[in-house]
């Protein structure tokens, strides 16, 4: 007697739970992803009413703290070095804006020094970043 071998075995991976797995992975990576962010320096921004929104993609921040330290891209730099970095950024993106994150108690001369260097490298678009809060007393 000849037995017929059943050759038509269906091999299939159940895919119904694929969606669950994908979602689990998605959620896992969403939760564990840390976006690169600039720490800068701790500064107390001046308060101003006339500030307008500046596009984040175009801004490169220069932190100047109350002690006069200047930080660009998380490095403590001199005004000349800050300007060199801004030159690079302006070449990459002509719409680049140098955003001054200056402490209210910082001396004005640091801004002046940076602006002087910025002028030399033609990074002329700047912005004095501030907080919008009219309730607080002005300096």
């Amino acid at each position: 007697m000849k037995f017929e071998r059943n050759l038509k075995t269906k091999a299939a991976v159940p895919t119904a739970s694929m969606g669950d797995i994908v979602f689990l992975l998605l959620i896992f990576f969403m939760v564990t992803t840390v976006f690169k962010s600039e720490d800068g320096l701790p500064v107390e921004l001046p308060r101003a009413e006339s500030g307008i929104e500046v596009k984040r993609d175009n801004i490169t921040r220069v932190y100047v703290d109350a002690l006069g330290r200047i930080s660009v891209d998380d490095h403590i730099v001199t005004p000349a070095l800050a300007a060199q970095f801004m030159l690079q950024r302006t070449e990459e993106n002509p719409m680049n804006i140098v955003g001054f994150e200056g402490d209210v108690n910082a001396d004005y001369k640091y801004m002046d020094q940076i602006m002087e260097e910025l002028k030399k490298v033609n990074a002329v678009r700047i912005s004095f970043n501030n907080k919008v809060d009219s309730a607080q007393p002005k300096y």
Partner: protein
Amino acid sequence: MAVKIKKYRRPVQDMEMSSISDIVFLLLIYFMVVAVFQQDIGMPFVLPAADSNQDQVVKIKESNIADLTIDANDLIFLDDIPLQVNQIKKRLEQRLTENPKLVVMVNNHPTAGYGTFAAVLDEIRLAKCRRVAIKMQDG
């Protein structure tokens, strides 16, 4: 005669779960659309470029200049007359109606506070003064 009593079976109370994912997606999409990324707020300013040659330098009539000086003690003077931060807007608005070609020249002492400068710049912007120059320390 035996009477068969039907056992009372409690109906299984099941919540309808199949539409949960739809609801979750709707919420997810809603919050994705509504979310606004934090923007930088600042007072934009354009510095004069270093490569602007002497022919392009605009000479301003003395009578069109309003000289705003901040001294080492953060005292503010408009054309040598001392005034408070909150008076600047009003005074500049007056000057602007008298002379629409008015150019405000901000002249800072190196050790003047950056906070004072920012507050002054804010007032100038609030006065809708479009022509502002910041005097650099070395010319």
